[in-house]
């Protein structure tokens, strides 16, 4: 049987959107897929040496439950429906929401992004970084983890064209 192949284009640079690409890539690798991930635009943030700065924003995100990761059950069950106008005025609102999200992630036995990313690397998932974005956002190659290929779209298609599954996230 031929090895199945998966290609993922990661375009988002927030804590919440960092999960789907790394979860799918690491799982596919565990199932025996050959996997390549192309990180472009904000997705490039997921390849920074330190990813602890990644944030989640509840602002303009009505799908995000705002629940507290501590306290008695009745308290944890409350969904804090805070209007956008208030969220946008409170300094540090994103920082607080991100801390709470990180606590929730830990409480639920969900891996950290740094952990999932290194699991991908251990499983030989190949990371392609968009060179154009590096220049556009004024990054230098030193800002990123080692083991990356800095390439353009054509290099991505070389692999993507042969895949069984190709996802844009």
């Amino acid at each position, binding site marked *: 049987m031929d090895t199945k192949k998966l290609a993922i284009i990661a375009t988002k640079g927030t804590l919440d959107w960092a999960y789907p690409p790394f*979860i799918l890539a*690491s*799982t596919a690798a*565990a*199932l*025996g897929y050959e996997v390549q991930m192309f990180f472009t635009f904000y997705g490039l943030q997921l390849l920074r040496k330190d990813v602890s700065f990644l944030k989640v924003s509840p602002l303009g995100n009505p799908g995000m439950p705002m629940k507290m990761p501590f306290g008695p059950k009745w308290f944890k069950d409350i969904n804090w429906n805070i209007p956008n106008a208030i969220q946008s005025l409170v300094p540090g609102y994103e920082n607080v929401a991100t801390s709470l999200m990180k606590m929730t992630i830990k409480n639920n*036995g*969900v*891996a950290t992004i740094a952990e999932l990313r290194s699991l991908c690397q251990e*499983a030989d998932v190949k990371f392609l970084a968009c060179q154009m974005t590096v220049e556009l956002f004024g990054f230098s190659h030193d800002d990123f983890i080692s083991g990356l290929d800095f390439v353009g779209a054509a290099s991505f298609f070389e692999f993507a064209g042969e895949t069984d599954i190709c996802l844009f996230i």
Partner: protein
Amino acid sequence: MDFDKELDARGLNCPLPILRTKKALAELSAGNILKVIATDPGSVKDMTAFAKQTGNELISSAEAGGEYTFFMKKK
């Protein structure tokens, strides 16, 4: 059931139980049995899917008191 290695995946959530299973199997030889204990309810279907796609044999899958126990035979 006799087994050659035990993996405690309790408290871990998707995709960690599968990734740890894959890693644990890599340390075994063909025909060896791996026992996995998990608390993730999604792991029941996921372990079946993992076995089907990787060719390892899921010998048994059981639930007791919120814990799921799997026995997997390495291909």
